[in-house]
């Protein structure tokens, strides 16, 4: 915190950094950032969780590092500096996991590229961390990832449930056998999975429905 700043750690202003990105200023549905990864990895709930955690780590530490260096970074190469920080963090995590937690690293390896190119990360570095102190940058990082995670989890919940009849890999709607007689649960009554939910267009449509729902609830987002 800056010297002479008597503001509390969780003052009203700082709390807003955590809460605003959840709804009013959601990075995905309001700022329309990070859509690419929201499409790519929302087929399964588990992948969405892993991705959210990975992004949280990178964004919180990245925001912190950028914020600490904000008075040193030359203006003309700031985007490149931001990219280096993201890439550094992602590769570091990947290497450590490969050595000590091989199974998680195998899950994450697919997302490494997606994290580096996630527009939310670059967006927050550029728009927030470069102009704010470390503590506020951390709060901003947490808030934005939680806002991102909410969308990922809601979208993947519907895609996994309707697309493959599972949640977190468990067959919640019953088991689909080779024939109706062999199937249990809903499949026994002729229910079929909607294969279309597995494809990218339905992720967009699900995000669209979420935005529609959000805008009809939240008066601040209604445009004249």
């Amino acid at each position, binding site marked *: 915190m800056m010297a002479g700043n008597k503001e509390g750690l969780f003052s009203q202003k700082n709390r807003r950094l955590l809460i605003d990105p959840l709804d009013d200023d959601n990075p995905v549905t309001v700022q329309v950032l990070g859509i690419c990864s929201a499409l790519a990895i929302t087929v399964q709930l588990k992948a969405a969780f892993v991705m959210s955690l990975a992004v949280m780590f990178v964004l919180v530490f990245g925001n912190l590092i950028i914020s600490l260096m904000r008075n040193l970074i030359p*203006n003309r190469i700031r985007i490149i500096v931001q990219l*280096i920080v993201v890439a*550094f963090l992602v590769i570091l995590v990947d290497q450590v996991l490969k050595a000590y937690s091989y199974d998680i690293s195998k899950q994450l390896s697919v997302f490494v590229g997606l994290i580096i190119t996630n527009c939310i990360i670059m967006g927050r570095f550029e728009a927030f961390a470069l102009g704010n102190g470390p503590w506020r940058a951390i709060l901003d990082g947490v808030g934005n990832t939680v806002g991102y995670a909410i969308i990922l989890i809601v979208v993947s919940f519907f895609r996994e449930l309707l697309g493959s009849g599972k949640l977190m890999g468990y067959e919640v709607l019953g088991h689909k056998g080779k024939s109706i007689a062999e199937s249990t649960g809903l499949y026994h009554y002729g229910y079929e999975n909607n294969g279309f939910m597995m494809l990218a267009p339905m992720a967009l449509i699900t995000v669209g429905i979420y935005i529609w729902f959000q805008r009809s609830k939240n008066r601040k987002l209604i445009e004249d």
Partner: protein
Amino acid sequence: MDRNSNLYTFIFAVILVVGVAAALAFTATTLKPLQAENVRKEKMQNILSTIGVNVSRDEAGVQFMDFVKEELALNADGSVNEDVDAFKIELMKETKMPKEEQAFPLYIAEKDGKKFYVIPLFGAGLWKEIWGYIALDDDKNTIVGASFDHAGETAGLGAEINQSWYEDQYIGKTIFDENNNFVSVKAVKGGAKSGDMHGVDAISGGTITSDGVTDMVTERLENYLPYFKNN
């Protein structure tokens, strides 16, 4: 110093890049042995899983010695190359060379008095490489188990090739038809007909990965035909 001067920008960039490179190089080198050990054990675990031995990665090292009796490196004509350590063959490098110069690893395992032939696979998926192992029964025709993995296929679509529902489809399929011609096992878009001995269901939304598996299985198995004919 002026933060916008060329000199400052240049010095800052150099310090940052060298610092980051040194930190990453240090991490990578220190962790390398641990990572290599994980990869080695996983390979053993995968080979064992194709013959129906499911062990944890830590146990795989010991169990591998018990089950795998021979590790052969074959030449393209089917003869055994004694000079090459089969376990160390890296298919990623081998498959880039012409067929005649490649070494083909083959693991011969024994379980409950029966002989199994485990063939390592390597090929291309949609985004990155895919690989796996396929185990053939004593008759060198019936598949007893398959294990696939990938470096970066799409989660929930192509990435499903490493799930048991996909791998288990290969069990019991045969790679030769009634006339003893090599036909391999193909992933069929829209689902294989029931009773198809040479087809499995492809993955919806993962067509290119499924085709990659088909090509990989066909291309790799074909290389072992000379050896199977002679032994």
